[in-house]
């Protein structure tokens, strides 16, 4: 984690909603993901950081500035925070063109510099030629980029994105996920990004802050947080029990071969950028099928020799921790466990279908 640039300690109570309790939140430069299920308060926290909501008590500090302090009666309105904010539905001004929208925040710039800056930003985001269009004439992906352009054109100190990909249809979302990651890294602006999608969090962020029922419950590197949930709350949110770093060895016929630990996995390569090398391999525990070596079904592409390391009871289900050359977690019903005669040390075959091996490219 880099040096802290933002510290927040505050509470906010909405009538009829959960109380948001942000306790000792420290965010560094780089891209931080605020991750949580719907209703966990992520958007509210983001809006408090933006100055669009005022917490009941506490304080928020950014750089050397105090943005909010209840005791000192300090509140810096959004205008004074020099931030860029992109809400989930983009909120593009319907009565202004793309150029008008993007240029709206440039009032402080001398008139002569505005047009070049707008042009440069539009160019960089692939929006050149759309200056005179109105928001309603744009596609979802274009609107998202205009909203981003509008937020970054004035070189803000902090970028706040609320579910940036949620408003897009699934194919577009997957395609733009990679683009957005690149864009954000190129921008180099400290960014806080809200999402409920675990793969998005992995793809876009360096650090993840997990919010559960209005409280920040864990903060760490993305892979850390998801593979080693700090408590039951986090574990409940994270859907991928197995997250391991891997290296793409080759891609052929739409399939990618990935080296994970000592094992090799086959995954779908469709959304993988051509030059992807390092990836996170994510597998849901429910997607892991266990079988005796002699009676394993043949359709799943991945057959891994596995040794049972631990069997833990979780309500009506059994969580099985395996060693396949890398740690793999499976989830089975109790009857299934008994049928297999699961016990520590047992050797089995773990089967995972190629489409259920998710790859998230990352760069350190």
């Amino acid at each position: 984690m880099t040096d802290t640039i933002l510290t927040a300690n505050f509470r906010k109570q909405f009538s009829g909603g959960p109380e948001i309790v942000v306790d000792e939140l420290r965010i560094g430069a780089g891209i931080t993901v605020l991750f949580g299920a719907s209703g966990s308060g992520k958007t509210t926290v983001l809006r408090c950081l933006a100055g669009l909501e005022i917490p009941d008590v506490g304080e928020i500090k950014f750089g050397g500035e105090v943005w909010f302090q209840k005791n000192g009666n300090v509140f810096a309105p959004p205008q004074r925070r020099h931030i860029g904010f992109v809400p989930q539905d983009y909120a593009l001004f319907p009565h202004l063109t793309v150029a008008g929208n993007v240029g709206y925040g440039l009032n402080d710039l001398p008139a002569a510099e505005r047009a070049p800056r707008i042009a440069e930003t539009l160019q960089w985001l692939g929006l050149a030629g759309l200056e005179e269009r109105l928001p309603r004439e744009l596609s979802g992906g274009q609107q998202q980029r205009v909203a981003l352009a509008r937020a970054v054109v004035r070189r803000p100190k902090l970028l706040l994105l609320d579910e940036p990909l949620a408003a897009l249809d699934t194919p577009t979302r997957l395609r733009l996920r990679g683009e957005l990651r690149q864009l954000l890294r190129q921008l180099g602006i400290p960014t806080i990004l809200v999402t409920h999608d675990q793969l998005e969090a992995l793809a876009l962020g360096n650090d993840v802050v997990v919010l559960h029922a209005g409280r920040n419950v864990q903060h760490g590197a993305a892979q850390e947080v998801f593979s080693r949930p700090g408590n039951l709350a986090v574990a409940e949110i994270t859907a991928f029990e197995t997250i391991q770093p891997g290296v793409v060895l080759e891609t052929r016929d739409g399939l990618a071969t990935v080296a994970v630990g000592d094992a090799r996995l086959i995954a779908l390569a469709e959304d993988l950028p051509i030059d992807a090398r390092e990836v996170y391999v994510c597998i849901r525990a429910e997607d892991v099928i266990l079988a005796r070596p002699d009676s394993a079904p043949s359709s799943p592409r991945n057959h891994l020799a596995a040794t049972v390391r631990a069997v833990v009871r979780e309500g009506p289900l059994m969580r099985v921790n395996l060693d396949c050359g890398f740690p793999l977690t499976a989830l089975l019903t109790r009857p299934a466990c008994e049928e297999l005669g699961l016990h520590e040390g047992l050797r089995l075959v773990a089967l995972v279908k190629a489409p259920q091996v998710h790859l998230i490219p990352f760069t350190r």
Partner: protein
Amino acid sequence: MSGAEWQLVGFSLRMAFASLLLILPFGLALAWCLARKDWRGKALVETLVSLPLVLPPVVTGLVLLQIFGRRGPVGSWLHNTFNCDVVFTWRAVVIALAAMSLPLFVRAARTAFEEVDVKFEQLARTLGAGEWRVFFTITLPLAKRGVLAGTLLAFARALGEFGATIMVAGNIPGRTTTLPVAIYQAVENGEDAHAWMLAGVSAVIAFAAVFVSENLQRRRK
């Protein structure tokens, strides 16, 4: 229609326009506060603003007479400081028209502002826009139709205003006689044909204003 009659129509139109100059700044500010803000006495303010709509116009006229008469709080100050009279002059006409039409404007403008999603205003603030800039570049343009409809409605109401006007401005031909007052006087004098002609002009202007206003309010999004 004779020259004097055209002058009368011209006078009424000028007075109605002048009343808009009073209505717009106060009305926009009031409508915005009512749409966006909340405070302890808000219900009271809402009621006061709506009063001229339901009170007999002569009552509003009476209240204005008390305030702006030579012995009233504002009237005496104006008379003593600037030797300026309000009652029985064109100034009283403008004030009466503004008082009676303000509620209509505020209602329409308030609805228009309420229909502007606050998310746009909030976003403008994150882009560094101060409150005045947010109002003039975001809120008002997005509320444009409703505000315009309200302005037309207020204009039409001002043109037809009678009860408060006659109380506070009287009926001084050439100086405070508006179209509705002239119609009343014509009837009083037994000049029926004259009255009908003026009534016709009045009706045509009112019809046009309300027609356009209704259309503006209907064709939205």
